[in-house]
């Protein structure tokens, strides 16, 4: 979240790939990369929402450290030297994307989000042209009970963007997460059909921030679900200032 610069925030210098940069010390690595158009894949991170650090796609290497760091949840520091591209990082990112495709049921050719999906786009960017892991092919439920929206768990990657936007921006906290592993699911209220929710205001923010075809508008056909997330940084900023 960008905040007005105040004299109390220090500036640090750091190196990302071949770029010598300066940044405010309260910024995360991914924020600095975005400002300088250094591409880092990410799925759970979204400017305007709190940090989740769950998808691990944004992992980077820090010089002198053997373990990897999530760029979305690591703050910059003076003298940091960061590598955003390496064979090891590419291999991990590739595998994470393959695991996401293998876990649930992604059939892009018949998906409402075909052509407008962050998962699909990242797969292409990262050169995932096939999935080496066997697909699980386990059917997940679809909740069409809401009069305006639909939730298809088959396309959900559990990024929790919906949970965070509903709680932090809309203030409704309709969504949460239940169970673990492959049984993990987002739930509305206490695992009730979304259409019965007492808390949902039908604002549609969760639908707009969902990176995939999991949360969509009713009545959309193949490739018709185009999302608009422009509202988020603006609303998040207003929330922060108020």
């Amino acid at each position, binding site marked *: 979240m960008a905040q007005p610069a105040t004299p109390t925030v220090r500036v640090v210098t750091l190196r990302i790939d071949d770029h010598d940069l300066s940044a405010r010390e309260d910024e995360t690595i991914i924020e600095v990369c975005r400002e300088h158009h250094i591409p880092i894949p990410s799925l759970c991170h979204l400017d305007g929402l709190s940090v989740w650090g769950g998808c691990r796609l944004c992992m980077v290497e820090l010089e002198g450290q053997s373990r990897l760091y999530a760029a979305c949840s690591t703050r910059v520091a003076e003298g940091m030297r960061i590598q955003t591209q390496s064979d090891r990082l590419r291999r991990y990112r590739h595998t994470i994307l393959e695991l996401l*495709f293998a876990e649930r*049921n*992604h*059939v*892009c*050719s*018949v*998906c409402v989000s*075909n*052509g407008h999906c962050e998962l*699909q*786009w990242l*797969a*292409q*960017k*990262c*050169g*995932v*042209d*096939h*999935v*080496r892991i*066997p*697909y699980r*092919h*386990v*059917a997940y439920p679809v909740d069409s009970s809401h009069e305006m929206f639909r939730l298809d768990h088959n396309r959900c990657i559990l990024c929790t963007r919906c949970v965070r936007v509903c709680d932090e921006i809309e203030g409704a906290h309709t969504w949460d997460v239940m169970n673990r592993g492959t049984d993990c699911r987002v739930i509305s209220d206490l695992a009730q059909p979304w259409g019965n929710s007492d808390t949902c205001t039908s604002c549609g923010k969760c639908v707009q921030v969902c990176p995939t075809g999991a949360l969509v508008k009713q009545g959309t056909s193949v490739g018709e679900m185009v999302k608009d997330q422009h509202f988020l940084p603006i609303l998040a900023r207003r929330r922060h200032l108020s």
Partner: protein
Amino acid sequence: MSAPKITVATTWLDGCSGCHMSFLDLDQRLVELAQLIDIVYSPLVDAKTLPESVDVGILEGSISSDDDLEKAQSFRKHCKLLISLGDCAVTGNVPAMRNPFKLADVFDRAYRENVTLQPQIPTRDVPALRVPVKPIHGEVKVDVFIPGCPPSAEAIWYVLNELIAGREPDPSSVTRFGA
């Protein structure tokens, strides 16, 4: 005197033939391609037997039946380089959408529930269906993957030309799942 042409074999397994149609969408470029490659076996030509050794094999469709599996294995055996063409071949795509269901239920749906005249399950002269439906590389080794439903003629053109030029194609630069 020109160099010997690259031999190419193609066939479709469980697909809709759309990927082959996309290949035909190369239109006048097919003439150019014909100077460089020889299609020695394909639903698009007359030859009925797969030659002993072929340079490039192209498979459309997923492996859904015993017949699909046999074809995939024979292509792997006789082709030096094997290409999975299209999402059905690469991911299982629409044919694999039956996987979460029991095969008996799928049969019932297709041959009983939706049929008004003499509902019956075909058993003669049709290959047995396999469970689960798999992408080609789920059964045999595949060398090049061209995702897309169907991949565009441009994507097919790019990959074939890279291969003809002796380079390793990067299909993700021109196509993706669902393209």
